[in-house]
C-alpha cells in the first residue's frame, strides 16, 4: 500500500506540489494524470525519496518512510526515457538492484533470466544497451526496476518517448503484467488514454493539487469540475449560471431528419467509434458518438435527442484545461 498525505513541495518559492494526497491499495495501479508542469512528476520523486517534501508524509505498507533515503526505500522507478546505465550490458542493468541488495550470484543470474523472460527479452543478457531499440530499452528498464521486487513500482511517463504503435503495444503489455504479478503501481502520465488504460484509480492533478481521484468510469461520468471535464476530453461542457453542464457524447443521439434542429459539421471515425459534431440552429455545438456504420454525414440535417442520465451539472471550477 502506498499513501502520500498532504505533500507540499516548493522550488525557490514557487509551489510545485500543493497539499496533495494520493493513496493506492495493495496490488492496484493508480494513474496520476495532469498537464505538464502540474507537479505530478515531483510528487512521484517525493514518493521515491529523490525529492524532499516541505511537508506531508509518505507511507509504504503502513510505515512512515519520510526519513528513509531513496536507496533504502525499496521502490522501483522507471524514468521518462529509460535512463539505462550505458556502461553495463542488459544483464548488468537488470542485476544492478540485486547486487546492491547483496544477493548471491546464482540467485542474481536466475532472477535476471526470469525478468528478461517476463519482459520478452530472453537471451538478451550480454547485449549492449546502446544496441537496443527504443521498445527493448523500455523493457530492460522495466525489468531493472522489477528485479529487486520493490514494494511499489513508480512509472514517470514510462512510454513517453516511443512512437504510437509501439507505445500502444507496450501499454497493453504493462496492463496485463501488473495484473499478473499483482504489484502496487503509481504511474504518472499526461495522456488520458494511458491513464484510463493503466489505472484502477486515476488522480487528476492541476497546479500542484489533486483535484479528483476516482475510477476511470466515475471520472468520465462525474468530473469534479468543468476543467477536469475538458481535460478528460469532454467536448460538451456548457458553462451557465451556477455551474457547468456536461453532456457525455454517448448520451447524444443524432438522427437524420429534414426538420431537425441541427446540422452535422463533421463525422470522423476512430476505430469502432464515429465522432459526430453538430451545430445547433439555436447556437452552440454538440458532440456525439455512435458505433453505427450508417451514420449521418457532414452537411446532413439532424434531430437531437439527449439521454438525461448522461447529463451532469458540475462546478464551473477555475482555470482552463490548458493551464
Amino acid at each position, binding site marked *: 500500500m502506498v499513501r502520500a498525505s498532504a505533500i507540499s513541495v516548493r522550488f525557490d518559492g514557487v509551489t510545485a506540489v500543493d497539499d496533495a494526497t494520493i493513496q493506492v491499495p495493495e496490488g492496484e495501479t493508480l494513474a496520476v494524470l495532469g498537464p505538464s508542469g502540474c507537479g505530478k512528476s515531483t510528487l512521484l520523486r517525493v514518493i521515491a525519496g529523490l525529492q524532499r517534501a516541505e511537508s506531508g508524509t509518505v507511507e509504504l505498507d503502513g510505515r512512515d518512510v519520510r*526519513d528513509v*533515503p531513496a536507496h533504502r526505500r525499496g521502490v522501483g522507478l522507471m524514468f521518462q526515457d529509460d535512463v539505462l546505465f550505458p556502461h553495463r550490458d542488459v544483464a548488468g542493468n537488470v542485476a544492478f538492484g540485486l547486487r*546492491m541488495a547483496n544477493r548471491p550470484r546464482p540467485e542474481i543470474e536466475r532472477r535476471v533470466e526470469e525478468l528478461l523472460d517476463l519482459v520478452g527479452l530472453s537471451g538478451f543478457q550480454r547485449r549492449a544497451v546502446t544496441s537496443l531499440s527504443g521498445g527493448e530499452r523500455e523493457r530492460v528498464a522495466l525489468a531493472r526496476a522489477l528485479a529487486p521486487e520493490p514494494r511499489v513500482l513508480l512509472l514517470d511517463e514510462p512510454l513517453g518517448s516511443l512512437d504510437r504503435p509501439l507505445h500502444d503495444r507496450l501499454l497493453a503489455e504493462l496492463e496485463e503484467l501488473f495484473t499478473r504479478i499483482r504489484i502496487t503501481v503509481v504511474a504518472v502520465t499526461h495522456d488520458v488514454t494511458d491513464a484510463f488504460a493503466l489505472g484502477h484509480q486515476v488522480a487528476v492533478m492541476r497546479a500542484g493539487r489533486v483535484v479528483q481521484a476516482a475510477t476511470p468510469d466515475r471520472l468520465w461520468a462525474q468530473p469534479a469540475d468543468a476543467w477536469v471535464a475538458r481535460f478528460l476530453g469532454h467536448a460538451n461542457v456548457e458553462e451557465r449560471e451556477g455551474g457547468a453542464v456536461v453532456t457525455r457524447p454517448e448520451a447524444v443521439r443524432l438522427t437524420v431528419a429534414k426538420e431537425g434542429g441541427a446540422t452535422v459539421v463533421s463525422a470522423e471515425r476512430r476505430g469502432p467509434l464515429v465522432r459526430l459534431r453538430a451545430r445547433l440552429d439555436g447556437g452552440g455545438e454538440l458532440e456525439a458518438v455512435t458505433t453505427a456504420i450508417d451514420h449521418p454525414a457532414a452537411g446532413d440535417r439532424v434531430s437531437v435527442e439527449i439521454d438525461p442520465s448522461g447529463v451532469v451539472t458540475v462546478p464551473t471550477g477555475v482555470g482552463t484545461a490548458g493551464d
Partner: protein
Amino acid sequence: MDADRAALARRAGLVAAGVIPAAFVALFFAFPFAAILGRGLGEDGRLSLPFDVWLSSETLRLLWFTTWQAAVSTVLTLAAGLPLAWAVGRHAFPGRSLVRALVLVPFVLPTVVVATAFLALLPDSLERGLPAILAAHVFFNVAIVTLVVGGAWEGLGRGPWETAATLGAGPWRRLREVTLPLLAPALSAAAALTFLFCFTSFGVVLILGGPGRSTLETEIYLQAARAFDLRTAAALSLLQLAMVALALVAIGRLEASRGGRPAPATREGLRRPAGRERAAVAAVLAVSGTALALPLALLVARSLATGTTAWRRLFEETPALLVTPWHAIANSVLFAAVAAALSVTVGGLAAAVLARLRPGALDVLVLLPLGASAVMLGFGFLIAFDEPPLDFRSSWWLVPVAQSLVAAPFVVRIVAPALRSIDPRLREAAAVLGASPGRAWREIELPLAARAVGVAAGFAFAIALGEFGATVFVARAEWPTLPVTIFRFLGRPGAENQSIAGALAVCLAALTVLAALALDRAAPRSRGPL
C-alpha cells in the same frame, strides 16, 4: 540514516573531496605565489611597490617586444593554419583523420624539442633571433587554428553556404558575408589562445632568442636564475600575471560569446574535393606537411650529424652533467609518471567538486595556475621552499609536484566536462535501486568518467615529460630531466654537444608522441583539451 543526514553526508563528501586539491593548491601554488608577492611588493616587511622596475625603459622594451612578437606570431599562425583548416574542415579525403592527428604532433611536442629542431633547421646566419622564434611559434600553434577553426567550419555544414548561393551570392560574397561571420567566434578563440601561448612562450624564446631577445617570461628566469635579482624577477612576475589575467578574461569573454562548444561536427558538411579544389587541397596538404615534417626530420639528421657518436654518448659520463644523459631519460619518465598520478588525483577531485557546482564561478580559479605560467611557478618554488620548515629544495619530488601543477588545469578541463555530461538521473536510478551515494559514485560516475580520466592522465604525462619552465628552476643537478639536459647541451659549444642535444630531443619527442598515441588509442572520440 535519514534523508537529511544523507544530504549532509553528500555535502560532507563534497567538502572532503574538495579539501585535498584545495590544500595542495594552497601549499604548492598559493604559497609560492604569495612569496613572489612578498618579494615583489615589499622590502623588509614594508609595502614598497616596485615602480622603478615596472616603469624602467628596460621593462617597457621587454613588454613591447613580448607583445608584438606574440601579435606577429598569431597573425602568421592564422595565415598558415587557415588553409589547413579549410582543407580539413570542408573536405572529405582519404587519410583526413590521420592529417588531423599529425597536425597535433607539433602541438604536443615539448618546447625544447621544437626549439632544438629549429636550431637544426635554420641556416647559421639566421640561427638565433626573431625569425627563428616566429617560425617556431607558428609551427607550434598551427594545430590550434587548424583544429579549432577547422572543427567550427565542419560544424557549419554546407547549409548556410548553399542557402546564400541560392539567394544569389557569389563565392566571394559567400566568404565575406556568410562563412567569415560564422567562423568569427572560432577564429577569435584560436587567435586568443595562440596569442596567449606566444605571449608566455618560454623554452622557444630562451633557446632561439639568443642574447638580447628576451620576453617577460625569459627575463623572469634570467633575472632569478642568472642575475639572482629576485626583486626584479618578482616585479616582472607580477606584471606578467596582470597581462595574462587580462588575456584570460578576454578569452573567457570570447568563450562566453561563443555560447559554449560548437555543435558536434557532422560529416554532412564535408565533401570530396574535385577539379581545382582538389588540386588546392592537395597543395595545401603537401606544403603544410613538408613545413611540419621538415624540422623534425632535420632534428633526427642533427642527432646523426656526428655519426652514431651522439647516441653512444647518451650512455657515457659527460662533463656537462653529474649523471649520464641516459639517466635524464629515466628521470623524466619517472617524474612524469608521478606528476601524472598527482595531477589526476588533485585535478580529478577538483573536477568532481566543480562538476557538482554551478558551472563558471570556480572554473577560472582552477585555470589560474595555467595562466600564472610555469616559469612563475618555478620561481615561486625557488623562493618559497628554501628555508625550514619548508626547505624542500633538495627533494626530488618537488619536480613532479611542480609539473603536476602545470598539468592539473588541463586535467580539470578534460574531466569536469565529462563528469558534467553524465545524466544526473543515472545517479537517481542507481539510488532507487538501492545504491548509497558513495556506491552510486563508484558504480556510475567513476566508470563513466574513466575514459576521460585516462585521457587526462596521458595528457598530464605528456605535459610533465616536456615541462621546462618550472622544472628548470627546481630540477636538482643530480636529478636532471630531459628538457633541462637538452637545454644544457645546447648551451655548450661544439657539434658533438649539439648532436647529443638532438639525440635527446629525438628521444623526448618519441616519448611524447608515444604517450599521445596511447592516449589517442584509449580515447578515439575524445575532444582535445582546447
